């Protein structure tokens, strides 16, 4: 009943034993941080600083320091929000959906993907919070009785749905991530020497011993969590898309948004995972765990989802024409030919056209090229959100209120700053936690069918 697979190439190369896996994966945790890590970490701290400054300036003087105006009241802020949430989704997707589909190749990348999810959601959350005119009373968006008589919240508002969706998404992802990490934390616990390290890893390992009973429950829980996370990830981006789909603004008021946004999320998410892993596998020399095979699998998904969103773009045009609503029609013609044509076309070329290169084996298997493409993909997806938000708002119903909008320095600073948040978290994660799920990888050393 047990025999080596003949058809698949190994998911982990280099004839690793379980002991090797433990040693390799826990090396960065047990050793002093490498100089590469130090440089990267300092750099991210610099960006974190940029975030701090821009945020202080915004909250201190008022969001008038952004360039949003009477017609375009959402600009870079919500663009970045959707951008980061989208990125977050790939993490959940890789770990959850691929787990449901029993895709073993996910095993060596899901840990970092989940981490990415959590950090991305943190970045995303910054924007809906700090785009508020009076952020100090932002908690009124929670269903609490307030000091002005127990006026509650508006359950019709997509923004309120966001509050629930994003918080649920964050906490559930965190739980999923943590439970998945407990056995590895236990492994580290039994490897570390220093007292403090021992204490903390012991603290978080929650007394894990690897009993068969625990493993049985562990696998069941992972499965169920995977199941609901899949629903969750779909619902979250559906709700994010509802921020626009439920409005009356031409270009926003579209029923195609939920699936289109989800596809876009997977697309950008895998883009980001690729960016991170191509670097990580080199820097932390995990080539044997994150193989070219993994990268190739991801590029395939990028190509498919990219094509999906591309089709969505075209469908929007068709529907606008078909609707015979002049405002809708104008909104889309204006996207492609209006003052913001450059944004539209960079979106098109980055998201629909560029990923088509992955039809070629070389493109799918050349790390440096994949890295460049993954950046292109994320640029494209940022522009997608910019196009949806800004070009729809800057010319809506009454031509008298048509305006132009371009981000101010503070807005740019905030956006760059979120990368600071993201990478700071990621570097800390890479230093103190196993970037690859050891216990799972150990199960596929033999590459069973």
């Amino acid at each position, binding site marked *: 009943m047990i025999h080596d697979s003949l058809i698949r190439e190994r998911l982990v190369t280099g004839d690793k034993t379980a002991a090797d896996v433990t040693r390799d994966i826990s090396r960065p945790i047990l050793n002093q941080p490498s100089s590469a890590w130090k440089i990267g970490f300092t750099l991210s701290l610099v960006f974190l600083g940029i975030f701090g400054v821009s945020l202080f300036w915004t909250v201190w003087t008022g969001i008038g320091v952004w360039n949003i105006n009477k017609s375009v009241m959402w600009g870079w802020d919500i663009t970045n929000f959707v951008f980061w949430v989208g990125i977050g989704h790939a993490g959940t997707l890789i770990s959850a959906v691929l787990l449901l589909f029993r895709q073993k190749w996910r095993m060596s990348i899901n840990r970092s993907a989940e981490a990415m999810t959590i950090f991305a959601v943190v970045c995303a959350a910054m924007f809906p919070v700090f785009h508020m005119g009076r*952020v100090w*009373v932002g908690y009124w968006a929670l269903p609490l009785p307030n000091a002005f008589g127990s006026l509650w*919240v508006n359950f019709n*508002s997509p*923004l309120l749905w966001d509050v629930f969706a994003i918080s649920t998404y964050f906490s559930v992802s965190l739980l999923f991530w943590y439970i998945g990490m407990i056995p590895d934390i236990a492994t580290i616990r039994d490897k570390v020497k220093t007292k403090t390290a021992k204490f903390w890893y012991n603290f978080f390992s929650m007394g894990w011993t690897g009993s068969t009973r625990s493993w049985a429950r562990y696998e069941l829980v992972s499965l169920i969590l995977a199941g609901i996370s899949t629903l969750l990830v779909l619902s979250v981006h559906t709700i994010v898309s509802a921020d626009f789909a439920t409005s009356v603004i031409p270009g926003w008021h579209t029923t195609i948004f939920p699936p289109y946004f989800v596809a876009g999320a997977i697309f950008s998410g895998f883009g980001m995972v690729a960016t991170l892993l191509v670097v990580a596998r080199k820097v932390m020399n995990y080539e044997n765990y994150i193989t070219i095979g993994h990268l190739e699998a991801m590029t395939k998904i990028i190509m498919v989802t990219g094509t999906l969103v591309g089709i969505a773009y075209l469908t929007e045009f068709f529907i606008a024409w078909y609707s015979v609503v002049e405002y809708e029609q104008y909104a889309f013609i204006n996207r492609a030919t209006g003052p913001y044509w450059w944004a539209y076309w960079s979106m098109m070329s980055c998201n629909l056209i560029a990923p088509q290169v992955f039809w070629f084996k070389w493109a799918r298997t050349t790390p440096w090229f994949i890295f460049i493409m993954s950046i292109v993909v994320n640029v494209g997806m940022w522009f997608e959100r910019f196009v949806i938000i800004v070009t729809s708002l800057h010319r*809506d*119903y009454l031509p008298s209120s048509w305006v132009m909008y371009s981000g101010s320095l503070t807005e740019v600073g905030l956006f760059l700053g979120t990368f600071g948040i993201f990478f700071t978290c990621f570097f800390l994660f890479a230093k103190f936690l196993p970037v690859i799920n050891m216990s799972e990888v150990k199960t596929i050393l033999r590459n069973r069918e």
Partner: protein
Amino acid sequence: MSLLITANMSNNIKYWKGEEELNRDPQFLADQKREFGEALPLEQALSDEGFELNSNRRDFLKYFGFSVTAVALASCYKTNVRHAVPYLVKPEDVTPGVANYYRSTCGSCSVGCGVEVKVREGRPIKLDGSRDSVISKGGLCATGQASILSLYDTERLANPLMKNQEVQDWSTLDGEIKSKLAVMKATGKKVVLLSNSINSPSTLRAIASFKEAYTNVEHVGYDAVSYNGILDANEKDFGKRAIPHYRFDNAKAIVSFGADFLGTWISPVEFQADYAKHRRPDVEGGMSVHIQFESTLSMTGTNADHRFPMQASKELAYVGTLYNYLAKAKGLAQIPVPTNAELAGNSIEKAAKLLLKNAGKSLVISGSNNSEVQQVVNAVNMLLDNYSSTIDLVNHSNQFSGSDAGVQAAFEGLSKGTIAGVIFYGANPVFNHNKEWAAAIAKAKLSISFASTKDETAAVCQFVAPDNHFLESWSDAEPLKGIIHFTQPTIAPVFNTRQAQESLLNWAGSIPANENDPLADKGILSQKLEASPYYLFVRSYWEGVLGAAEFQKALEMGVAETTKNEGMVSYVGNVSALAASINKSSQAQGIDLVLYQSVGVREGSQGNNPWLFELPDPVSKVCWDNYVALPKQIAAKLGIDKDATVNIEANGVKYENVPAFVQPGQANNTVSLAVGFGHTHAGKVGGSIEKGFAPIGVNAYPFMNTTRDVVIGDVKITKGSEKYVLAQTQTHHSIEGRDLVRESTFTSWKKNPNAGNEKSAPHIYTIWEKAEYRKDGSPNHLWGMAIDLNACTGCGSCIVSCSIENNVPVVGRDEIRLRREMHWIRIDRYYSFVSEKESMTRENDIADADSADKGDYKHWENVSVIHQPMMCQHCAQAPCETVCPVLATSHSSEGLNQMTYNRCIGTKYCGNNCPYKVRRFNWFRYNDNDKFDFHFNNPLGKMVINPDVTVRTRGVMEKCSFCVQRIQEAKLKVKREGGNMKNVQVETACQRACPSNAIVFGDLHNPDSDISKLHRNERAFSVLDELNVQSSVKYMTKIRNTETI
């Protein structure tokens, strides 16, 4: 509290709101920092739903229960104790929280509109037109509305100035001046009292007695923007140097040559009201026809049925041609000119035909200050026999009577030294006459200014005896022969100022004895003002004319009538003598510069008023600057598109890098520039050299020659080296063929009252129930608004009125460049470019036409314009409400879309989701913020704030509330005094201000109300009906009377 402001103020500029502040009472100082300085008055607190005055036991129990709960709740929440400080001596006519209204006369220009001043706790906070005034007829222009702020202007002089030194007591000043005057009288040196046009009988009498005392004094009146053309022409033709009273209410056919009579010409408020009477299609006798020949696209031009661009310097030729057409038709002698000048499509001939059809009820006017043009216009009106109906020269207008020759003579006298002394009263020639005035004044032995701020002229005068603001003054006005308006103070002088008339009387030594002096310094407004000597002067005169009882009544009503002239004027003019100059004019070459008054800033007397600068120009929608308006042809030649500047030179005056603006409708070979800008001594807002604030725009007055002609020939225009971005509230000007404004023509309307509005309401599929507004079972109010696009002229009076009423902050040029103006009501203006083929409303079509054009750009000259006031539509199914996560905006039981500021967290989703884009966001804190150093940033300016409306904090959304505070006021009134809301007229600020009554507001649940009738009207349509937001505002289809010629 502010009642206690008295004349004897401390010398450093400190405006104390009450004795507590003067004594620096710690509690008061603490209170100051809070939103509500003092607790709300009892009346308001108790005037709650279900409050009756005859309270029985049950009520007592209710209140008891309420107060117990209230106390309980209050004690749950940490708040500081607040004390309401009562009046020491409560004036019998002031109730805290209840406004008093006084009739007075607007002093912002010499037109003399009757106004109603709203006073809260002794602070005038709003000006509206008086319904008993034949001039304002209930409306008031933007400039007049805004003039209330110059009362609270920090630039006002707190004390008289002697050689730029402040002096506390007037007696020293008076002593100095008297002695100097005496010396001059003795030595027979000439003194000139230079004023603007004065139509106040009492003031004229004061001046007269001053002249009696000092026989060497000569009084010269002049106007910054002169009407001498008309005055001289009438003197020549009728032997009567006066401006006639134009009766637009009798005119069925109006032909105007460049006269912006709805915006700035003579008496625009009155003219708007009269004009609007005949602009509604359903008026009996049908719509009037309005033809406008003009070079720059004026607000009046945008309202014309037919507008024909003409080169300004050829105006004389064109009116001559019109005369000849009429003369020919009547078989009279024509003016002997070789060829008649005609405009494209023989429009002048068409106009002539139309006028003949309407002879006797037509009106031809010209905005020119050239007496020859006006003579021909007189002749034309004579031919049409309009002097019996539409032009009343018998009971003429006194509004403008200045003499250009006089002021020129005074200037030359001063510079030659033949005039030794000069007194400026309401005159600022250094700013609005020629440049050399400063030098001339320096030569004078005695120079006095009555200016209330240290303006350009005052700055170079030896003495400044600051005049009161008109809201602090007693006076009167006779705008039309026999029509008297009274001015009464509504607040004690804020500073140590004195009415100019009083000063004159004082110097003349003929000041009336003050009877009830003992009360004078009790700090009690009524007695104090009654004690003012000039009041006694005014009273003694009018009691003589009207009788004591009548005078009191007149004072209350604000108006009175005296005897009118009888008889006719006889025409003695002869136009054939003008043949030569008509011929010359028809040969005019080169580019003309046309100087005009912008609708807000006007001639520029309120140089420091932020409301006026923030008011977008009705046509160009530019704020905070004047600019050279170029026709497309010239712009194309210079290679100018947008954000450009030009260098302009004419009459030896040259300005470099003046902002340029390509103005559709601008006639070829004419550029225009607004006067009234470019103050150098206005102040923080308007620009002040000594304080280091850059002037706003450039001063165009120096371009005028000695004849004060507003049309200047052969100007040189070159492209400027710099770029300049004008602050505009609207940057897209074509309606893109969208069904947002509906139009039709009078003829088709007569056939079918639905014309233009045939588009039936879209078929709606909805899963929700229809909105119902009921209170305890029975139907509640349902407030709605109707706006008649035929009546709306786009003047923007509503914008300023709304800003004042609702404490809308001023944000300044840079914020408007960022498209962040805060106006709750705006007026959308759309051009459609008319070429031979069709009228183009899409930017692409226009761009195509431009690129196809050979350089004559006819479609840029022929534009048709529509104005559409736009404010919150109070949708029953409001998109903004559904998306607010915290229920900060919700729907009231009276159909109001209400904004709860203190619940708003500022997600701005509502603003995004508003299809009309009428929501405004507080991007910064606009009060107490040095970045926004306007009236909200100083204690004096804040006195204009309406206490019934919250001043919004940073980070919250705001928008039109249908003046909910006024609705509430009306309801409370009904509760207190009984009666039925049906009979109470609730008026929104915009409606109250509108000179042409374009806006109607009321209860849609009352089937007989005007508003219900209008909403049922065939012309009524709502914007973006297809979205099924069910707006409460309906617009009346615009009907143009275009098929008549």
